[in-house]
């Protein structure tokens, strides 16, 4: 028999923190990770010894990255598990932290994502199975093909893809943790380097590095640790699935994203209409249009209309990627999913200043990991 997260002990995000995402640098990963961790501890009003266990999402640093990092903030004996799930490594670390608290094994658990640029290795290159196309394992090509298909079938215009990127770059320009901090116009996005089809470089997320941390607690942990009662944000759904073979033209990861979102809604007891903020996997601009449809924020085939009418803008019906998303805030892999939790938590607490979605109560974080897997978390202010 399976149970939903909502059927277990309630789990709350009590503290979040980040190290800004940035282009490749000499900054040690430990410095970035501890910056995010100390910010999350300060946000929760906790000291490190309160953390009973930690899940570390990383893709390229190497074995025992978390344990080595924790040597420099105190060897408290906490349980320590490293998690790799490609782009969703941070999201999976967060899921495991939530499940551990929900299951009653711990009262205060840390999810932290940290990564440096450039050390990642892809297992598919060790598969020893060739493909007809030399770009068969490059997601950009799949999404560029999808964009061309939608341009022919549904009138998707290059300006729509540029509109997603311009919105997200402009959101990121107001985000102190974002890798890109320049507002961009549709014209500027269209004028950037052409990469594949009508997809330009500014429609693609940058690679980089950074860190993000989230601390989750049970109600017992909140009481025992004296965490302020009006700030915790409850996690009401946590769902992860992997893709099935492609049926028809839809990319399997898009079909999968819909399945995961629907399961997350069911688990949280909500519908898409309830979402005030969504952070989703916009590695490429076309993805945001596709996912706003599969998540039910816009009717199928009308994602570009939702965008054009401002539905996904801050102040619109549901602010999508108010952080700037992967395109603007960045996509350092290990931290990305936890960076989404950071954004949503602060949105639900009403702390995001000029990027604030007014009255936000419910948010969803969604990531795709190479392979593909999809993962979604619903967070709710009670």
């Amino acid at each position: 028999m399976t149970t939903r997260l909502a059927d277990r002990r309630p789990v709350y995000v009590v503290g979040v923190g980040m190290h800004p995402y940035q282009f490749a640098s000499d900054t040690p990963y430990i410095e970035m990770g501890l910056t995010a961790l100390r910010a999350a501890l300060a946000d929760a009003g906790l000291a490190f010894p309160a953390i009973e266990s930690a899940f570390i999402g990383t893709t390229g640093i190497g074995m025992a990255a978390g344990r080595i990092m924790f040597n420099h903030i105190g060897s408290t004996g906490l349980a320590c598990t490293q998690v790799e799930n490609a782009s969703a490594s941070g999201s999976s670390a967060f899921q495991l932290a939530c499940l551990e608290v929900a299951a009653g094994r711990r009262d205060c658990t840390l999810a932290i994502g940290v990564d440096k640029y450039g050390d990642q290795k892809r297992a598919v290159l060790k598969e020893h199975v060739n493909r007809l196309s030399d770009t068969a394992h490059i997601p950009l090509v799949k999404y560029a093909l999808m964009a061309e298909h939608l341009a022919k079938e549904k009138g998707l215009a290059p300006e729509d893809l540029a509109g997603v990127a311009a919105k997200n770059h402009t959101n990121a320009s107001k985000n102190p943790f974002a890798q890109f901090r320049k507002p961009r116009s549709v014209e500027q996005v269209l004028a950037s380097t052409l990469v594949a089809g009508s997809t330009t470089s500014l429609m693609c997320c940058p690679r980089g590095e950074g860190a993000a941390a989230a601390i989750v607690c049970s109600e017992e942990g909140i009481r025992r640790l004296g965490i302020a009662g009006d700030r915790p944000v409850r996690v009401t759904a946590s769902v992860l699935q992997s893709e099935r073979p492609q049926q028809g033209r839809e990319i399997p990861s898009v079909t999968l994203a819909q399945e995961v979102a629907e399961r997350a809604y069911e688990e949280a007891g909500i519908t898409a209409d309830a979402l005030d903020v969504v952070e989703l996997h916009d590695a490429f601009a076309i993805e945001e249009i596709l996912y706003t449809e599969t998540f039910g924020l816009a009717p199928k085939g009308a994602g570009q209309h939702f965008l054009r009418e401002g539905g996904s803008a801050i102040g619109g019906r549901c602010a999508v990627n108010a952080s700037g998303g992967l395109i603007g805030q960045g996509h350092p892999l290990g931290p990305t999913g936890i960076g989404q939790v950071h954004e949503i938590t602060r949105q639900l607490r009403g702390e995001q200043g000029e990027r604030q979605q007014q009255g936000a109560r419910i948010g969803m974080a969604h990531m795709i990991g190479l392979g593909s897997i999809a993962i979604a978390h619903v967070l709710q202010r009670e």
Partner: protein
Amino acid sequence: MTTLEKPDLYRLAEGGRTLELRFARCTACDAPSFPHSPYGCPRCGAPADALREEFRDGRATLLGFVTLHARLAPGIEPPQVVGEAEIAPGLIEEVMLAGDETDFTDGMAIRAIPHEVQREGGAVIACRFAPDPEAAP
């Protein structure tokens, strides 16, 4: 010169003007699959010794295509047109196309042809798809 770049995927057809694709047929579930996995049937999970090699002519239906303007992978010399093609009923694969966008339309019949490319160690025969001259108009 008949060195194939990816001999696990294709072979020269008789006459050498087209390529045949190397599928697998599962003796347990009868499903065809491509590429031929050395590990087992991707449909039912039967072990590799349940898979039988099955060559098919490289005819396919082009579903869509896009031009790559950047060198996204080793061996790619932009502009390069790539597409999605149905190489057997229900089996969709990304393929590389010979020519430019003006040579192709969605839904057209295409066929795998040998295409000489330079790789480390010299020239080899790669697989490209081109409009199928034998297809019904």
